[in-house]
Every structure is written in structure tokens, then in C-alpha cells.
């Protein structure tokens, strides 16, 4: 069925995949911003955005009203607003870097998507074929390497704005992101120590992590969040810091820095920063789900293959693929809700608290955790 696609020139395939990423991540990020507004509203006792409606949908008797109350058309209204409103370019900025910064924000955010597997199906031999745009063996390393380039956009935006608050925001962002990257990377190492048994080919592939969590038996089907809760906790906290989400949203911190690094930005350039932030969140949630929540396995100790067997669709690659994508997206949605839930619950940390937490608490904890698991894994006979 997909032979036509695989016969295309690799360059054309690449362009098609790139367009697919943009066409999927952009609307998803927009939907996230809408979800953020809705979740914040519900938690504050408000109905949230609920007015925008397209005339043709308004004629549908019950559904139209429901969709209007849900605010889904504000997505289109917001997008149109960001596209068509005046794009201000302040006179005092360094124009080249000022325009470059949102682009630099978007590129790593969209690039990391290609190495994150988002589903799987079984071929005729019963082997798992992951759905991923680029199944590279460095897997997680590629995610970390590329997504951490995102900090350059914040620094660039802060510096090019040639203004006090954006500059402070950029400086904070650089220090914060570097601090938390260490604990983040250290926190996932036990997972890879665990899956790379001696004698096997070493791999950082995320697909392998999921396969490891979908083995039969009690220990085989256990998600890593149960066997390595501390890793998951440190990774989650570091993820909040890396995506600049509350309570770690130091770089923008509207209370003390006006808007932080994007103070001088408006219209579409501003929205690009937010698309990038939400794309980072989506990918971060995806990586968390792959590493600790069993990827596309529906439940702990119930793998995708088992579920497909129950439903009797194991022989249909397309159905299994869509099922796995659905399960994986469901986990991402739950995690994104968790991100928003935390944002509308916790106050922001003070900057020195962020640094103290990062360097004096999380980093030693991550190192101790790594050593403990290294010793533990070495002692367990396999």
C-alpha cells in the first residue's frame, strides 16, 4: 500500500515527512494553547473561551452549540489573529537576530519529532515495526541534543531585543536550561543501563525501551515508572524546567520580567515561540511516555500485541498502527493536561530557588540514583 511512497526519491520523502511534521505539530500546538486557556479557566471557576463559532457549524442543532461552548473555534480565531495582525519590529532591535530567534525556536522543536516513535504495527512475521520518521539508533540522544538547541532562540531573542527585561529573561533561560539538562540526562541513564544487557548491541533507541516494557511476564510488562520511580520523578521535574513551564517559567516570568524573552515580540513571531514551547511539551511528554509509561502499550502488563490479540486485529497492520498511535496520543494528552494542571496550581519559584533545586538537590539525587541503579543492575543476575 505504501510502496508508492517508498519508491520516491529520498529527498522527496524527506520533504513530505517534514511537511507532515509541520502540518501535525502546528495544529497540535495551537490546540494546546486553547487547551491551556480552557484548563486554566475551569480551574479558576470560569467557562473559558466559548464565543467563536463558524456560521455553518452554528446551524447544527446540538453539536454546534456544544463545540462553541468548548471553544474549539477560538483555535481558528487565534490563528487568524496572529497571522493578520500587524507584526511590529521595534526600532531599537538587532533586526537580523530578532527575526532569526523565533525561527531558531521552531527548528529544534520540530526536528526532534522525527526521532520520536509514535506507534507500531506488526508485519507478516509478527515482528514489531515502529512508526517513526527517522529510526536512528541514537534515539534519545538525538532528542536531547537537538531540543537543547532551543535555548539559543531564547538567548538570541533576549539579546537581540536590546531591552532590559528580555535580556534578563534570556540570561535566566540559559542558566536554567543548562542546570536542568544535567539532571535530565542523568535521570534516564538507569533506563538504558537496564535495557542494554551485557553482550547485546548497545542502543539508545526509544523503540527498544518500549519493546522492553512490552515483554510477557510480570517483570517484562512492568512500566519503568514502577521500577524506577525516582528516575521518572527527576525526569519529570527536569522536563518542566526544560520546557520553561511553571513553576520553572523563569525566562518569561510575567510578574517580574514583563514577558521575559518575548516582551518585544508580537503577532506571528510571538506565536512561533509558543508553537515551539508547546511542541517541546508534546515531545517531552512523548519521551516521558515512551521511557516510563510503556509507550504504545495500553496498560501495564497488557502489551499492544495482547490487546490486538483480544480485539482480533493482530493481522491488520493499519488497524494496529492506528490503535497504537491512539494509545500513545492518549498518554501524551494526559501528560499535557498534567503540565497545565501543575501550571495553574503552583506559584513560580524564585530564581535562587530554581538554581538551588537544580544544582544542590536534583543533580546529587540523579547521580546517587544512577550509582544505586548501576550497582543494582550489576548485582542482578540475568
Amino acid at each position, binding site marked *: 500500500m505504501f510502496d508508492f511512497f517508498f519508491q520516491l526519491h529520498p529527498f522527496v520523502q524527506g520533504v513530505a515527512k517534514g511537511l507532515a511534521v509541520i502540518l501535525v505539530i502546528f495544529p497540535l500546538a495551537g490546540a494546546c494553547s486553547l487547551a491551556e486557556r480552557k484548563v486554566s479557566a*475551569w480551574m479558576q*471557576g470560569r*467557562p473559558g473561551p466559548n464565543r467563536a463559532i463558524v456560521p455553518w457549524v452554528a446551524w447544527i442543532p446540538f453539536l454546534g452549540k456544544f463545540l462553541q461552548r468548548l471553544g474549539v473555534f477560538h483555535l481558528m480565531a487565534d490563528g487568524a489573529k496572529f497571522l493578520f495582525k500587524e507584526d511590529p519590529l521595534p526600532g531599537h532591535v538587532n533586526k537580523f537576530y530578532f527575526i532569526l530567534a523565533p525561527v531558531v525556536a521552531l527548528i529544534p522543536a520540530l526536528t526532534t519529532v522525527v526521532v520520536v516513535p509514535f506507534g507500531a504495527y506488526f508485519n507478516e512475521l509478527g515482528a514489531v515495526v515502529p512508526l517513526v520518521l527517522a529510526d536512528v539508533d541514537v534515539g534519545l540522544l538525538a532528542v536531547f541534543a537537538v531540543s537543547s538547541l532551543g535555548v539559543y532562540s531564547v538567548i538570541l531573542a533576549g539579546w537581540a531585543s536590546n531591552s532590559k527585561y528580555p535580556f534578563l529573561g534570556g540570561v535566566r533561560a540559559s542558566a536554567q536550561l543548562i542546570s536542568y539538562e544535567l539532571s535530565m540526562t542523568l535521570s534516564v541513564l538507569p533506563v538504558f543501563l537496564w535495557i542494554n544487557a551485557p553482550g547485546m548491541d548497545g542502543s539508545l533507541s526509544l523503540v527498544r525501551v518500549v519493546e522492553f516494557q512490552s515483554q510477557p511476564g510480570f517483570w517484562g510488562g512492568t512500566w519503568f515508572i514502577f521500577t524506577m520511580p525516582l528516575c521518572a520523578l527527576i525526569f519529570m521535574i527536569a522536563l518542566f524546567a526544560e520546557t520553561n513551564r511553571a513553576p520553572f517559567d523563569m525566562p518569561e516570568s510575567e510578574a517580574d520580567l514583563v514577558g521575559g524573552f518575548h516582551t518585544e515580540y508580537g503577532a506571528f513571531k510571538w506565536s512561533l515561540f509558543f508553537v515551539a514551547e508547546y511542541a517541546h511539551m508534546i515531545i517531552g511528554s512523548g519521551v516521558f511516555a515512551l521511557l516510563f509509561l510503556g509507550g504504545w502499550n495500553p496498560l501495564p502488563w497488557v502489551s499492544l500485541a495482547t490487546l490486538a490479540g483480544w480485539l482480533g486485529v493482530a493481522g491488520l497492520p493499519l488497524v494496529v498502527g492506528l490503535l497504537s498511535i491512539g494509545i500513545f496520543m492518549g498518554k501524551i494528552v494526559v501528560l499535557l493536561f498534567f503540565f497545565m494542571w501543575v501550571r*495553574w*496550581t503552583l506559584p513560580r519559584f524564585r530564581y535562587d530557588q530554581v538554581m538551588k533545586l537544580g544544582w544542590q538537590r536534583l543533580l546529587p539525587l540523579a547521580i546517587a540514583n544512577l550509582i544505586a541503579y548501576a550497582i543494582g543492575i550489576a548485582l542482578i543476575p540475568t
Partner: protein
Amino acid sequence: MAVIPVSRKSLSFAERTYLPQIVSGLKTTFSYMFRPKVTLEYPEQRPEIPVNYRGVPTLVKDPQGREKCVSCQLCEFVCPPKAIRITPGEISAEAPTAHVEKAPQAFEIDMLRCIYCGLCEEVCPEEAIFLQNQYSMTGYTRAEMVNDKAKLYELGGTLPDDHFKWDKKKAAEEHGNAH
């Protein structure tokens, strides 16, 4: 006054990790998601106006539909932002209310100037001007925001009258004791 030394309890390990507190906070916000919303969805739902609300100043008529204002201009003089402009006029001798002698020929309140202080209502000896429930005055032009006499009576309507002052005056006059 004795000084009572209070020792601050040091935080337990669980408290120092913040995590139990964060979880309890998350529980609270989650429960709020399912509570009834407090928003008043304005154009469809209107707020309940309390009694003695000071809305847009209006002119009122008495229960017989007669004009109460006698264009004494006290409100014009007391108005702090000078929003009221009255052109006094005479009541023709043939009219049944000829003994009132005066009525406004024109009565304008500039709602761009009005500060809703209610001094006009307070000062009016005829109880002819009232700040009522209307709270939302909008217009596309400055001219539209000036309420003329017809608009003021339209907004004001009729309010009950306890005194019928001019009826009493007329009755007294007819019975020979003018005061």
C-alpha cells in the same frame, strides 16, 4: 504583656521535598474544575441591580404622566462636571398645569461628562431627576452620547409620587390660603 516564645516547628522530610504539598494543591485545583462556574456571561446574563443603584440620570414623570421638572436649574448648578444643560421654558397659560409656570424647554445631559455622582438627584426639589438602573450607555458618536429631553424621559419613565406637590398648591390656592 508577657512575651510568649513560640518555637517554629522544623519541616519534616516530606515537607521539605514539597511533593505532598504539591499533590494536595493539585487535588484542590482538580476539584475546582467540576464546581459550578462563577462567571456572569454578560450580554446574555445581566447582573442583578441593587436598590438605590446610581445608573444613568433620567427625568421622570408623575403617575398622571405630567412633567415634574420645573427647570429651576439647581441640578445644572450643582453638577460637578457640568454635564447638565437646561434651557428653561414657560408653560402656556392655557395648559392645565399653568400654575407650575416653568418647564424645561430643552434638557441635555452629556453622558461623556457625567460622573454618576447623584448630586442632581439629591438636590432636585421636585424629585424629577433620578439615577436609575440603566448602567450601559454606548454610542458611536459624541453627539449620540448627549441625552436630550425626549431620551431622558424615555429612559426615566414614571415613578410613584408621595406628594403631588403642585396639586396641593393648586388646591390651597383655590381655597384661599396660598401658603
